[in-house]
């Protein structure tokens, strides 16, 4: 006869094992998706050629090498990094604000970035007067960080609840959208087209240097967030309970907000507005893995990366020869899946 305690241990061990297996499954699916993304494209190279170009890039034709290493690879890897960054950013915004609606998109960070980019695209206004060849991402980044800091500044005021912060974010979205429309109203046709295209989000903007920066930020951010895993899990019980466990909610909020703003801003400024991942990635991970940050954090990163990687494959296969902007693809394909997940669950999802 097993004691109650032993049964509890067993249950816990089984739970941990199950969650570890789920994470491993996610990782395997991600690897597979990455391989498919690298193998597919309008230049119909055989699988053997692709593998050869991957392993011995010096021995294949210039064109094959360029297609694989300069066109497909940055896009495929950027999908993983941006997907993970946006999803993690969304997850921690939801956690620290204790609100299921929080994400880089709903808090106005994406809209801010879009406004910064539009200023550059339509009028050539540089908010950061260095490195004009990077004027668009720099502008986007500056506006995104400014937005995040505004949100934080307001959250410090007395009596501001997390609901207020989300409302504030939505207000910012509206302001930036109006400003964007104003820019488009005065801009040339050519510039309007460029602004619209930018806001649709596109991975084809990816380059190795952008990829390196995004990866660097993600690699720095993940351990910092993981270190706060227990505290963040506790935050989900409410500030008062978290405080009783020794968490300092205000400090934690600032620290996490700075990290995730950086994550979201970098991603959005490089690839444009991709609204859906930051909201849905974490929710999918939470439904499958639960609230424990030890699993939820890597889970959200993996699910975000997987969604964007699948989106990347679809975006170039829908009409072979062109690339449908990824923001459109992820929303159209991902939303029905998300709805299914929400509606098919019996219990509350938040």
């Amino acid at each position, binding site marked *: 006869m097993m004691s109650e305690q032993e049964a509890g241990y067993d249950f816990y061990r089984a739970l941990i094992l199950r969650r570890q297996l789920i994470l491993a499954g996610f990782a395997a699916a991600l690897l597979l998706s990455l391989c498919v993304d690298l193998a597919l*494209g*309008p*230049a*119909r190279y055989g699988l053997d050629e692709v593998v050869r170009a991957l392993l011995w890039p010096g021995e294949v*034709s*210039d*064109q094959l090498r*360029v*297609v694989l290493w*300069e*066109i*497909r690879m940055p896009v495929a890897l950027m999908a993983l990094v941006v997907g993970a960054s946006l999803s993690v950013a969304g997850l921690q915004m939801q956690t620290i604000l204790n609100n299921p609606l929080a994400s880089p998109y709903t808090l106005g960070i994406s809209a801010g970035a879009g406004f910064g980019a539009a200023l550059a*695209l*339509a*009028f*050539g206004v540089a908010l950061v007067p260095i490195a*004009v*060849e990077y004027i*668009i991402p720099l502008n986007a980044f500056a506006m995104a960080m400014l937005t995040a800091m505004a949100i934080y500044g307001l959250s410090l005021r007395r009596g501001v609840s997390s609901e207020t912060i989300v409302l504030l974010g939505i207000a910012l979205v509206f302001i930036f959208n109006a400003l964007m429309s104003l820019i488009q*109203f005065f*801009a*040339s*046709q*050519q*510039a309007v087209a*460029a602004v619209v*295209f*930018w806001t649709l989000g*596109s991975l*084809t*903007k990816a380059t190795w240097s952008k990829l390196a920066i995004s990866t660097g930020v993600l690699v720095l951010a993940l351990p910092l967030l993981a270190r706060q895993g227990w505290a963040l899990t506790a935050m989900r019980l409410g500030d008062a309970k978290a405080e009783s466990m020794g968490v300092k909610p205000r400090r934690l909020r600032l620290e996490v907000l700075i990290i995730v703003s950086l994550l979201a801003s970098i991603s959005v400024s490089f690839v444009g507005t991709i609204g859906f991942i930051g909201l849905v990635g974490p929710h999918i991970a939470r439904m499958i893995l639960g609230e424990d940050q030890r699993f939820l954090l890597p889970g959200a990163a993996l699910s975000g990366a997987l969604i964007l990687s699948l989106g990347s494959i679809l975006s*170039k296969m829908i*009409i*072979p*020869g*062109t*690339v449908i902007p990824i923001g459109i693809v992820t929303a159209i394909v991902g939303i029905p899946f998300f709805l299914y997940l929400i509606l098919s669950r019996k219990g509350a999802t938040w």
Partner: protein
Amino acid sequence: MRLPLPLLLPCMLLTSIAAGHAASVEITDIAGRQVTVEAPAKRIILGEGRQIYLLGALEREAPFARVVGWRQDLLQADPDTYAMYAEKFPELKALPTFGGFKDGTFDVEQAASLKPDLVLMNLEARAATEDAGYDDKLAHLGIPIVYVDFRDDPLNHSIQSMRIMGKVIGKEDKAEEYIAYVHQQMARVTDVLAMAKFDRPKVFVDRAGGYSDTCCMTFGNGNFGEYVEIAGGTNIANGILPSTFGVLNPEQIIAANPDQVIVTGGQWEAYVPGGNWVGMGPGSNLKIARAKLEKLTQRTAMTGIAAVKTGQFHAIWHQFYDNPYYFVAVQRVAKWLHPDLFDDLDPEATLKDLHDRFLPIAYKPGYWVSLSDQ
């Protein structure tokens, strides 16, 4: 002094005949609508500033004589041409300007206060115009809308639009003269190709190449894509893009391996300062343009393609895409694609001749450049 009525009437009649008094004329516009206008119209609103491309060819001495208001897009989209017109006809700067019908910012009250005989509208503004009910409102005021087009389908609609405008302002002879000229210039390409045996080179049209990092905007089977086909080439985006405008996967360009690349460019310093666009247009600096064109060959999507290896890499004025002077672009492309067939064709002479014979402004070179130029 008062004249007795029996004397006054014949006087009025005489003055009105002398002034070419308007008579009702029935025309079919580009949208296929039957419109009755008082022609020749004396007061016209240009719903699209670039309609001056057409009007200028009909009335080179005073292209703005009948214009009482216009949309300000010429200044935004084609500042070089605007500057040339403004220099010669400074009165255009004082003309009231409008927002676009398409974006719903056309002010119908302002339009009515200008008491126009008619409003010339571009075809693509039709849906927005009717949606906002401007057509009904203007009809109540007795102001007809006439639709013309030289952008959605320049090859088929430009000539018809010219004919309509000729009728509206009572310059049908001039319009027919221009139309005959266009037919004659197009025939210099199509007649030769109809007789000749030739291979169609694969062409990639790089729409506004270098304007943004994003590669590669292009044309589907319309517009420049169609110019390429008429000029005896194969547009590599044809059959891939479902509409006139679109974006190709950079990989697709490497896979298609085009024999020639045609970059469209304009003076976009105001929009993308220091950008990689190629600044073509009247009076452009060809040396700078060529250097920037050279730089565009180094983009990832151009790796190892035949056009870069052989130097068949060209840039042409972007505004030929919505311009009734498109036949010059067709000639230029034809000569790039088949230099041996068009040895005696000189597109630059055509463009100069067009200015000398029809246009209010003087010709300035700078509309194209090629890496194959010596």
